């Protein structure tokens, strides 16, 4: 379970402080898939970074699996079972997909096991397992590898920051399937997705609407989603074209 208590986050903006997150309190119970949505600039990604420990809140406390992790580092939170998928995945010269999956798994998993994570995100494992995680990969390929690393973490809480950003329609459909599979298997685990895609909101158990750094609304999907349809908090799709080759046809 993740619980945020009265979280605020300020950054220096010229001479004044700018408040990005304002007194946010929310709870993600175990076994739930929650989606944080809301207009651009509302503080969604910042909230995800605060949860992962990349940023530290100015005020408030964060509890994860019953422990106060507010002062815990990124590494400590990761080792407690928190996984985080970047909105803009990072590239590494010389680090291969297999290396990254092994780091994520925390052990030297067999190549065949690593391949399963790639297959789960719709990548032909044979073609990608030995690839360098560098600029030769397209945005969509990189994004799927990013999600595969989160699958390999087998985390208690997986946080995805705008997983649909920068991917093509085919990948997006596959992504929904990945989340649905994760959800079916998660039992006492939870997933938190930052997204304003309607199709992702459609698979949520709970929806949190973040606007101007504050929780505007929070509740079960059936209660929250109808009011969002047609707004910028529930976008119906806008896809970039992915280069050929980025699919699972082996």
């Amino acid at each position, binding site marked *: 379970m993740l619980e945020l208590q009265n979280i605020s986050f300020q950054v220096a903006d010229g001479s004044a402080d700018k408040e990005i997150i304002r007194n946010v309190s929310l709870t993600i119970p175990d076994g739930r898939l929650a989606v944080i949505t809301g207009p651009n600039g509302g503080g969604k990604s910042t909230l995800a970074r605060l949860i*992962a420990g*990349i940023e530290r809140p100015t005020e408030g406390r964060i509890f994860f699996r019953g422990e106060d992790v507010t002062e815990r*580092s*990124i*590494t400590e939170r*990761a*080792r407690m079972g*928190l*996984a*985080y998928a*970047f909105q*803009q*995945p*990072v590239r*590494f*010269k*010389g*680090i*291969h997909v297999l*290396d*990254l999956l092994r*780091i*994520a798994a*925390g052990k030297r998993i067999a190549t065949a096991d690593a391949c399963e994570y790639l297959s789960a995100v719709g990548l032909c494992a044979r073609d990608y397992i030995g690839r360098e995680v560098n600029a030769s990969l397209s945005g969509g390929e990189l994004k799927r590898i990013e999600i595969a*690393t989160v699958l390999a*973490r087998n985390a208690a809480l997986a946080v995805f920051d705008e997983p649909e950003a920068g991917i093509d329609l085919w990948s997006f459909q596959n992504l929904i399937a990945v989340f649905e599979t994760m959800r079916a298997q998660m039992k006492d685990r939870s997933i938190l997705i930052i997204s304003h895609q309607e199709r992702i909101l459609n698979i949520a158990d709970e929806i949190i609407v973040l606007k101007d750094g504050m929780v505007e609304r929070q509740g079960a999907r059936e209660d929250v989603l109808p009011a969002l349809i047609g707004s910028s908090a529930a976008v119906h799709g806008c896809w970039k074209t992915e280069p050929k080759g980025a699919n699972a046809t082996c």
Partner: protein
Amino acid sequence: MLKLDEIQMRLLREVADLHSVPEGAYNIRSNAHSAGRQSTANIEITPKTDVSGLEIRIKPGTKKESVHIPVVLTQTGLKEVVYNDFFVGEDADVVIVAGCGIDNCGAQDAQHDGIHRFFVGKNAKVKYVEKHYGSGEGSGKRILNPVTEVYQEAGSYVEMEMVQIKGVDDTERTTKAELAENAKLIVRERLMTHGDQRAVSVYNVALNGDGSSADVVSRSVAKGNSYQTFDAKIAGNAPCHGHTECDSIIMDNGRILAVPGLEANNLDAELFHEAAIGKIAGDQLIKLMTLGLTEAEAEEQIINGFLQ
């Protein structure tokens, strides 16, 4: 049987991946003496008579054979200059493993300057691996100044892997190559300096023949207060293709000067260079930390990958 002590064997493992006597032709030089030498039917190794060093003659058409000529140095104060000449016959296809390891526990400098010349015959293929390594707690420096000269005849192919990852205090590496028509040279240099180390690497490649090509790529990491210079010049004197690249990570107070140089002396010479220097990106560290690594482990992982 090799007459080497434990430290010398460790150095041998570091620079040539050797755990015992290698297969094929070899000469193992230890503290200015040969600790073992073997020629084969196709590869003859003979000591030079005028200066210190070897002549290695590889018969034309020799295929899938290797030559190991590692050097280990454990005597403080020892300074040596060694001249090794390789004559690679036409159509030969061989692997040459060189490399030098210095363990200096004393107060005086230990220095090995290896001057290697390669005369590569028509259509011959050579893979050359050279690793440099230093260890020892002494205040004396570990110094290596390799000079490599490569003369490639028509259609020949030379691939050079130059690695210096640890422990060499001071190095000036000079590589010169001249290529005839359709000859190809590939260089992959990996370098890491730390502490107060200094490393200078200079390349001068002349693409003299029609259709010749060179690809010189260096990846390096400068840590601590170390300083590196990478100075790679490719001259296109014929219709040819040349590419040089320097990609570096700086850490702590490390400093790097990259000087890629291109000289086109022929209208159909195609020459490119790339150079990039920067610290490890914060996002890279964060990504690996979100996977459970500490910052130090993440840094190590990034550098190991980069220098792989």
